[in-house]
Protein backbone atom coordinates (compact mmCIF):
# COMPACT_ATOMS: atom_id res chain seq x y z
CA UNK A 1 0.00 0.00 0.00
CA UNK A 2 2.64 2.50 0.99
CA UNK A 3 4.49 1.47 -2.15
CA UNK A 4 1.96 3.65 -3.91
CA UNK A 5 3.50 6.71 -2.28
CA UNK A 6 6.94 5.68 -3.47
CA UNK A 7 5.77 5.04 -6.98
CA UNK A 8 3.96 8.37 -7.25
CA UNK A 9 6.94 10.17 -5.78
CA UNK A 10 9.30 8.43 -8.17
CA UNK A 11 7.17 9.23 -11.20
CA UNK A 12 6.75 12.81 -10.01
CA UNK A 13 10.50 13.22 -9.57
CA UNK A 14 11.29 11.85 -13.01
CA UNK A 15 8.53 13.89 -14.62
CA UNK A 16 9.69 17.08 -12.93
CA UNK A 17 13.31 16.46 -13.87
CA UNK A 18 12.38 15.88 -17.49
CA UNK A 19 10.05 18.84 -17.68
CA UNK A 20 12.51 21.20 -16.06
CA UNK A 21 14.94 20.40 -18.86
CA UNK A 22 12.34 20.43 -21.64
CA UNK A 23 10.37 23.51 -20.58
CA UNK A 24 10.59 26.13 -23.29
CA UNK A 25 11.03 29.06 -20.93
CA UNK A 26 13.66 29.53 -18.34
CA UNK A 27 11.35 30.59 -15.52
CA UNK A 28 9.36 27.41 -15.99
CA UNK A 29 12.56 25.42 -15.85
CA UNK A 30 13.62 26.96 -12.59
CA UNK A 31 10.25 26.51 -10.90
CA UNK A 32 10.01 22.92 -12.01
CA UNK A 33 13.46 22.41 -10.61
CA UNK A 34 12.25 23.65 -7.19
CA UNK A 35 9.38 21.24 -7.41
CA UNK A 36 11.88 18.53 -8.22
CA UNK A 37 13.76 19.47 -5.06
CA UNK A 38 10.58 19.12 -3.02
CA UNK A 39 9.86 15.71 -4.50
CA UNK A 40 13.41 14.62 -3.71
CA UNK A 41 13.09 15.89 -0.13
CA UNK A 42 9.94 13.80 0.32
CA UNK A 43 11.83 10.85 -1.12
CA UNK A 44 14.65 11.34 1.40
CA UNK A 45 12.06 11.24 4.17
CA UNK A 46 10.50 8.08 2.81
CA UNK A 47 13.98 6.56 2.87
CA UNK A 48 14.57 7.58 6.47
CA UNK A 49 17.16 10.24 5.69
CA UNK A 50 15.80 13.18 7.63
CA UNK A 51 19.19 14.91 7.78
CA UNK A 52 19.48 14.75 4.04
CA UNK A 53 15.95 16.10 3.70
CA UNK A 54 16.76 19.11 5.84
CA UNK A 55 19.96 19.72 3.88
CA UNK A 56 18.14 19.39 0.57
CA UNK A 57 15.42 21.76 1.74
CA UNK A 58 17.93 24.23 3.07
CA UNK A 59 20.75 24.25 0.55
CA UNK A 60 19.59 22.68 -2.68
CA UNK A 61 16.06 24.12 -2.70
CA UNK A 62 16.45 27.17 -0.49
CA UNK A 63 19.88 28.61 -1.17
CA UNK A 64 20.36 27.45 -4.74
CA UNK A 65 16.77 28.43 -5.41
CA UNK A 66 17.44 32.00 -4.38
CA UNK A 67 20.59 32.03 -6.52
CA UNK A 68 18.69 30.79 -9.55
CA UNK A 69 15.93 33.33 -9.04
CA UNK A 70 18.49 36.06 -8.76
CA UNK A 71 20.12 34.85 -11.95
CA UNK A 72 16.78 34.96 -13.78
CA UNK A 73 16.97 38.71 -13.36
CA UNK A 74 19.74 38.65 -15.94
CA UNK A 75 18.59 35.95 -18.21
CA UNK A 76 14.88 35.92 -18.83
CA UNK A 77 13.98 38.11 -21.77
CA UNK A 78 13.99 41.70 -20.65
CA UNK A 79 10.47 42.89 -19.87
CA UNK A 80 8.87 39.49 -20.29
CA UNK A 81 5.50 41.08 -21.05
CA UNK A 82 6.72 42.40 -24.36
CA UNK A 83 5.41 40.36 -27.17
CA UNK A 84 8.25 40.63 -29.61
CA UNK A 85 10.64 39.38 -27.01
CA UNK A 86 8.47 36.39 -26.34
CA UNK A 87 8.43 35.59 -29.98
CA UNK A 88 12.17 35.97 -30.17
CA UNK A 89 12.50 33.46 -27.39
CA UNK A 90 10.17 31.05 -29.07
CA UNK A 91 12.02 31.39 -32.33
CA UNK A 92 15.25 30.64 -30.58
CA UNK A 93 13.90 27.19 -29.74
CA UNK A 94 15.54 24.41 -31.65
CA UNK A 95 12.52 23.81 -33.85
CA UNK A 96 13.72 26.02 -36.70
CA UNK A 97 16.94 24.11 -37.18
CA UNK A 98 15.62 20.65 -36.56
CA UNK A 99 17.26 19.22 -39.64
CA UNK A 100 20.80 19.83 -38.51
CA UNK A 101 19.99 18.57 -35.04
CA UNK A 102 18.11 15.47 -36.02
CA UNK A 103 20.98 13.08 -36.54
CA UNK A 104 23.12 13.91 -33.50
CA UNK A 105 19.93 14.17 -31.47
CA UNK A 106 18.90 10.68 -32.43
CA UNK A 107 22.37 9.35 -31.80
CA UNK A 108 22.32 10.96 -28.37
CA UNK A 109 18.90 9.48 -27.60
CA UNK A 110 20.04 6.07 -28.72
CA UNK A 111 23.21 6.24 -26.68
CA UNK A 112 21.39 7.45 -23.61
CA UNK A 113 18.75 4.76 -23.98
CA UNK A 114 21.39 2.09 -24.16
CA UNK A 115 23.23 3.58 -21.23
CA UNK A 116 19.99 3.71 -19.26
CA UNK A 117 19.34 0.04 -19.87
CA UNK A 118 22.78 -0.93 -18.61
CA UNK A 119 22.42 1.41 -15.64
CA UNK A 120 19.05 -0.07 -14.73
CA UNK A 121 20.44 -3.56 -14.90
CA UNK A 122 23.41 -2.53 -12.80
CA UNK A 123 21.31 -1.01 -10.01
CA UNK A 124 18.82 -3.86 -10.18
CA UNK A 125 21.47 -6.51 -9.73
CA UNK A 126 23.45 -4.68 -7.09
CA UNK A 127 24.81 -7.14 -4.53
CA UNK A 128 24.12 -6.53 -0.88
CA UNK A 129 27.34 -5.19 0.62
CA UNK A 130 25.77 -4.76 4.03
CA UNK A 131 26.86 -1.15 4.52
CA UNK A 132 28.53 0.20 7.61
CA UNK A 133 25.51 0.45 9.87
CA UNK A 134 26.80 -2.14 12.31
CA UNK A 135 30.28 -0.58 12.47
CA UNK A 136 28.82 2.86 13.10
CA UNK A 137 26.49 1.49 15.75
CA UNK A 138 29.34 -0.23 17.56
CA UNK A 139 31.56 2.86 17.67
CA UNK A 140 28.81 5.40 18.27
CA UNK A 141 29.31 5.49 22.07
CA UNK A 142 32.96 6.47 21.58
CA UNK A 143 32.18 9.31 19.19
CA UNK A 144 30.95 11.84 21.74
CA UNK A 145 27.57 12.35 20.09
CA UNK A 146 24.42 10.26 19.98
CA UNK A 147 23.23 10.88 16.46
CA UNK A 148 24.95 8.52 14.01
CA UNK A 149 24.97 10.92 11.06
CA UNK A 150 26.58 13.66 13.14
CA UNK A 151 29.08 11.12 14.45
CA UNK A 152 30.06 10.21 10.89
CA UNK A 153 30.20 13.81 9.71
CA UNK A 154 32.07 15.36 12.59
CA UNK A 155 34.11 12.49 13.91
CA UNK A 156 34.47 9.32 11.85
CA UNK A 157 34.82 11.19 8.57
CA UNK A 158 35.66 14.64 9.92
CA UNK A 159 38.34 15.02 7.24
CA UNK A 160 35.77 15.02 4.44
CA UNK A 161 33.63 17.48 6.32
CA UNK A 162 36.58 19.77 6.89
CA UNK A 163 37.45 19.70 3.19
CA UNK A 164 33.81 20.40 2.43
CA UNK A 165 33.89 23.56 4.53
CA UNK A 166 36.93 24.41 2.44
CA UNK A 167 34.96 23.80 -0.74
CA UNK A 168 32.33 26.35 0.29
CA UNK A 169 35.00 28.96 0.98
CA UNK A 170 36.54 27.98 -2.33
CA UNK A 171 33.19 28.47 -4.04
CA UNK A 172 33.20 32.01 -2.70
CA UNK A 173 36.77 32.62 -3.90
CA UNK A 174 35.79 31.26 -7.30
CA UNK A 175 32.84 33.65 -7.46
CA UNK A 176 35.23 36.45 -6.53
CA UNK A 177 37.55 35.33 -9.30
CA UNK A 178 34.74 35.67 -11.83
CA UNK A 179 32.95 38.79 -10.75
CA UNK A 180 35.37 40.75 -8.62
CA UNK A 181 34.98 41.26 -4.88
CA UNK A 182 31.81 43.24 -4.40
CA UNK A 183 30.54 42.19 -1.00
CA UNK A 184 31.96 45.26 0.73
CA UNK A 185 30.04 47.68 -1.41
CA UNK A 186 27.39 49.87 0.05
CA UNK A 187 23.81 48.97 -0.81
CA UNK A 188 22.65 50.02 -4.24
CA UNK A 189 19.01 50.22 -3.31
CA UNK A 190 17.16 50.03 -0.03
CA UNK A 191 13.71 48.61 0.04
CA UNK A 192 10.92 50.85 1.22
CA UNK A 193 8.31 48.15 1.47
CA UNK A 194 6.78 48.27 4.96
CA UNK A 195 5.57 44.68 4.95
CA UNK A 196 8.94 43.42 3.84
CA UNK A 197 10.61 45.31 6.65
CA UNK A 198 8.24 43.76 9.17
CA UNK A 199 8.90 40.32 7.79
CA UNK A 200 12.64 40.82 8.05
CA UNK A 201 12.32 42.14 11.58
CA UNK A 202 10.26 39.16 12.63
CA UNK A 203 12.20 36.47 10.84
CA UNK A 204 15.72 37.45 11.75
CA UNK A 205 15.39 36.26 15.36
CA UNK A 206 13.30 33.27 14.32
CA UNK A 207 15.92 32.16 11.82
CA UNK A 208 18.65 32.68 14.34
CA UNK A 209 16.95 30.76 17.11
CA UNK A 210 15.80 27.92 14.94
CA UNK A 211 19.27 27.65 13.44
CA UNK A 212 20.78 27.46 16.90
CA UNK A 213 18.18 24.85 17.83
CA UNK A 214 19.05 22.71 14.81
CA UNK A 215 22.74 23.06 15.62
CA UNK A 216 22.20 21.96 19.17
CA UNK A 217 19.94 18.98 18.47
CA UNK A 218 22.44 17.76 15.87
CA UNK A 219 24.06 15.97 18.76
CA UNK A 220 21.08 13.74 19.37
CA UNK A 221 18.97 13.84 16.22
CA UNK A 222 18.69 15.13 12.67
CA UNK A 223 20.17 18.60 12.39
CA UNK A 224 23.62 20.03 12.70
CA UNK A 225 26.07 22.52 11.35
CA UNK A 226 25.13 22.61 7.68
CA UNK A 227 21.43 22.95 8.22
CA UNK A 228 21.94 25.59 10.89
CA UNK A 229 24.39 27.40 8.65
CA UNK A 230 21.88 27.78 5.86
CA UNK A 231 19.33 29.25 8.23
CA UNK A 232 21.89 31.69 9.54
CA UNK A 233 23.00 32.38 6.01
CA UNK A 234 19.37 33.14 5.22
CA UNK A 235 19.55 35.97 7.75
CA UNK A 236 22.40 37.51 5.78
CA UNK A 237 20.52 37.09 2.50
CA UNK A 238 17.35 38.59 3.98
CA UNK A 239 19.26 41.57 5.29
CA UNK A 240 20.92 41.99 1.91
CA UNK A 241 17.58 41.91 0.13
CA UNK A 242 16.25 44.38 2.67
CA UNK A 243 18.99 46.81 1.73
CA UNK A 244 21.43 46.07 4.56
CA UNK A 245 24.39 44.09 3.18
CA UNK A 246 26.07 42.50 6.16
CA UNK A 247 29.62 42.66 4.90
CA UNK A 248 29.48 46.35 4.21
CA UNK A 249 28.25 47.03 7.73
CA UNK A 250 30.97 45.24 9.69
CA UNK A 251 34.73 45.87 9.63
CA UNK A 252 36.59 43.98 6.94
CA UNK A 253 38.71 41.97 9.31
CA UNK A 254 35.58 40.75 11.07
CA UNK A 255 34.08 39.65 7.79
CA UNK A 256 37.25 37.81 6.88
CA UNK A 257 37.33 36.21 10.30
CA UNK A 258 33.73 35.04 10.02
CA UNK A 259 34.45 33.53 6.61
CA UNK A 260 37.54 31.63 7.67
CA UNK A 261 37.03 30.70 11.29
CA UNK A 262 35.27 27.41 10.59
CA UNK A 263 38.00 26.05 8.37
CA UNK A 264 40.80 27.58 10.42
CA UNK A 265 39.58 26.54 13.86
CA UNK A 266 38.91 22.97 12.75
CA UNK A 267 42.38 22.75 11.25
CA UNK A 268 44.26 24.37 14.11
CA UNK A 269 42.48 22.05 16.51
CA UNK A 270 43.58 19.16 14.31
CA UNK A 271 47.17 20.38 14.32
CA UNK A 272 47.04 20.65 18.11
CA UNK A 273 45.96 17.01 18.25
CA UNK A 274 48.92 16.10 16.05
CA UNK A 275 51.23 18.08 18.30
CA UNK A 276 49.80 16.11 21.20
CA UNK A 277 50.78 12.86 19.53
CA UNK A 278 47.40 11.93 18.08
CA UNK A 279 46.28 12.17 14.47
CA UNK A 280 44.43 14.97 12.70
CA UNK A 281 40.87 15.32 14.04
CA UNK A 282 41.40 12.69 16.74
CA UNK A 283 39.38 14.18 19.58
CA UNK A 284 40.32 13.22 23.11
CA UNK A 285 37.41 10.89 24.00
CA UNK A 286 36.57 12.69 27.22
CA UNK A 287 36.00 16.03 25.50
CA UNK A 288 34.80 14.85 22.13
CA UNK A 289 31.21 15.97 22.65
CA UNK A 290 32.08 19.53 23.67
CA UNK A 291 34.77 19.93 21.02
CA UNK A 292 32.43 18.71 18.32
CA UNK A 293 29.80 21.23 19.37
CA UNK A 294 32.35 24.08 19.24
CA UNK A 295 33.68 22.94 15.88
CA UNK A 296 30.14 22.71 14.56
CA UNK A 297 29.31 26.20 15.76
CA UNK A 298 32.39 27.67 14.13
CA UNK A 299 31.70 25.76 10.94
CA UNK A 300 28.10 26.94 10.90
CA UNK A 301 29.20 30.57 11.32
CA UNK A 302 31.69 30.30 8.48
CA UNK A 303 29.34 28.51 6.12
CA UNK A 304 26.60 31.01 6.87
CA UNK A 305 28.99 33.86 6.15
CA UNK A 306 30.20 32.23 2.95
CA UNK A 307 26.66 31.59 1.70
CA UNK A 308 25.71 35.18 2.44
CA UNK A 309 28.80 36.42 0.66
CA UNK A 310 28.22 34.17 -2.38
CA UNK A 311 24.69 35.51 -2.69
CA UNK A 312 25.71 39.11 -2.12
CA UNK A 313 28.50 38.91 -4.67
CA UNK A 314 26.34 37.22 -7.28
CA UNK A 315 23.55 39.68 -6.63
CA UNK A 316 25.77 42.68 -7.23
CA UNK A 317 28.08 41.08 -9.74
CA UNK A 318 26.72 42.80 -12.77
CA UNK A 319 26.04 46.13 -11.14
CA UNK A 320 28.24 49.16 -11.08
CA UNK A 321 31.69 49.50 -12.63
CA UNK A 322 33.41 46.31 -13.65
CA UNK A 323 36.54 45.69 -11.73
CA UNK A 324 37.75 43.19 -14.27
CA UNK A 325 37.97 44.77 -17.67
CA UNK A 326 37.26 42.70 -20.68
CA UNK A 327 39.68 43.19 -23.49
CA UNK A 328 39.02 40.16 -25.59
Amino acid at each position, binding site marked *: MSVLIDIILAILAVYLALQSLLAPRLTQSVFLFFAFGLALALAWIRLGAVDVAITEAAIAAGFLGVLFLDAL*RDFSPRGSEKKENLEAVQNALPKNNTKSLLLPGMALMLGLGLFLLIALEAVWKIPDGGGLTAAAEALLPESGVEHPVTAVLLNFRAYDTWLEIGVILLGLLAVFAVGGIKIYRKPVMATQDPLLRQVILFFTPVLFLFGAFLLYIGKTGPGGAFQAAVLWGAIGILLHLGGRPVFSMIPRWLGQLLLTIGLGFFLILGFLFIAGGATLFEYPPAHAGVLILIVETMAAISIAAALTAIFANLNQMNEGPNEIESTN
Partner: protein
Amino acid sequence: MDGFFVIVIVFLLLNIALGLFRVWRGPKVADRLLTTQLFGTTGMAILLVLAGYLKELTLLNVAITFNVLAILLVIGLVQVWKNKKEETP
Protein backbone atom coordinates in the same frame (compact mmCIF):
# COMPACT_ATOMS: atom_id res chain seq x y z
CA MET B 1 -4.93 4.09 10.56
CA ASP B 2 -1.70 3.72 8.55
CA GLY B 3 -3.69 2.86 5.46
CA PHE B 4 -5.69 6.02 5.89
CA PHE B 5 -2.53 8.12 6.18
CA VAL B 6 -1.22 6.60 2.99
CA ILE B 7 -4.44 7.49 1.20
CA VAL B 8 -4.20 11.06 2.44
CA ILE B 9 -0.59 11.33 1.32
CA VAL B 10 -1.35 9.91 -2.10
CA PHE B 11 -4.29 12.27 -2.41
CA LEU B 12 -2.12 15.26 -1.58
CA LEU B 13 0.58 14.11 -3.99
CA LEU B 14 -2.03 13.93 -6.73
CA ASN B 15 -3.03 17.47 -5.79
CA ILE B 16 0.54 18.58 -6.44
CA ALA B 17 0.50 16.80 -9.77
CA LEU B 18 -2.63 18.72 -10.72
CA GLY B 19 -1.02 21.94 -9.62
CA LEU B 20 1.86 21.27 -11.99
CA PHE B 21 -0.54 21.82 -14.79
CA ARG B 22 -0.75 25.49 -13.90
CA VAL B 23 3.02 25.93 -13.81
CA TRP B 24 3.09 24.37 -17.18
CA ARG B 25 0.44 26.67 -18.63
CA GLY B 26 1.39 29.92 -17.00
CA PRO B 27 0.38 32.26 -18.55
CA LYS B 28 1.93 34.93 -16.35
CA VAL B 29 5.03 34.87 -14.22
CA ALA B 30 2.79 35.42 -11.21
CA ASP B 31 0.92 32.21 -11.96
CA ARG B 32 4.12 30.31 -11.60
CA LEU B 33 4.88 32.00 -8.32
CA LEU B 34 1.45 30.96 -7.20
CA THR B 35 2.02 27.34 -7.88
CA THR B 36 5.27 27.29 -6.01
CA GLN B 37 3.12 28.35 -3.12
CA LEU B 38 0.75 25.50 -3.77
CA PHE B 39 3.73 23.18 -3.68
CA GLY B 40 4.88 24.70 -0.44
CA THR B 41 1.59 24.41 1.40
CA THR B 42 0.71 20.97 0.10
CA GLY B 43 4.23 19.73 0.70
CA MET B 44 3.97 20.94 4.26
CA ALA B 45 0.73 19.02 4.73
CA ILE B 46 2.39 15.90 3.33
CA LEU B 47 5.27 16.35 5.73
CA LEU B 48 2.92 16.62 8.68
CA VAL B 49 1.00 13.50 7.74
CA LEU B 50 4.27 11.66 7.09
CA ALA B 51 5.43 12.64 10.57
CA GLY B 52 2.42 10.86 12.00
CA TYR B 53 2.65 7.94 9.61
CA LEU B 54 6.36 7.27 10.14
CA LYS B 55 6.15 8.29 13.84
CA GLU B 56 9.20 10.45 13.21
CA LEU B 57 8.77 13.75 14.99
CA THR B 58 12.01 15.17 13.60
CA LEU B 59 10.13 15.66 10.35
CA LEU B 60 8.60 18.68 12.02
CA ASN B 61 12.04 20.28 11.92
CA VAL B 62 12.24 19.59 8.21
CA ALA B 63 8.88 21.28 7.84
CA ILE B 64 10.01 24.34 9.76
CA THR B 65 13.20 24.57 7.68
CA PHE B 66 11.21 24.38 4.49
CA ASN B 67 8.81 26.96 5.79
CA VAL B 68 11.34 29.51 6.79
CA LEU B 69 13.22 29.18 3.53
CA ALA B 70 10.00 29.37 1.55
CA ILE B 71 9.51 32.81 2.99
CA LEU B 72 13.01 33.76 1.99
CA LEU B 73 12.38 32.45 -1.48
CA VAL B 74 9.22 34.48 -1.86
CA ILE B 75 10.88 37.64 -0.68
CA GLY B 76 13.84 37.05 -2.95
CA LEU B 77 11.57 36.35 -5.83
CA VAL B 78 9.51 39.46 -5.64
CA GLN B 79 12.51 41.61 -4.91
CA VAL B 80 14.18 40.20 -7.97
CA TRP B 81 11.32 40.89 -10.27
CA LYS B 82 10.68 44.27 -8.81
CA ASN B 83 14.24 45.35 -9.47
CA LYS B 84 14.12 43.87 -12.89
CA LYS B 85 11.08 45.89 -13.73
CA GLU B 86 12.72 49.03 -12.42
CA GLU B 87 15.70 48.41 -14.64
CA THR B 88 13.65 48.15 -17.81
CA PRO B 89 10.90 50.75 -17.66
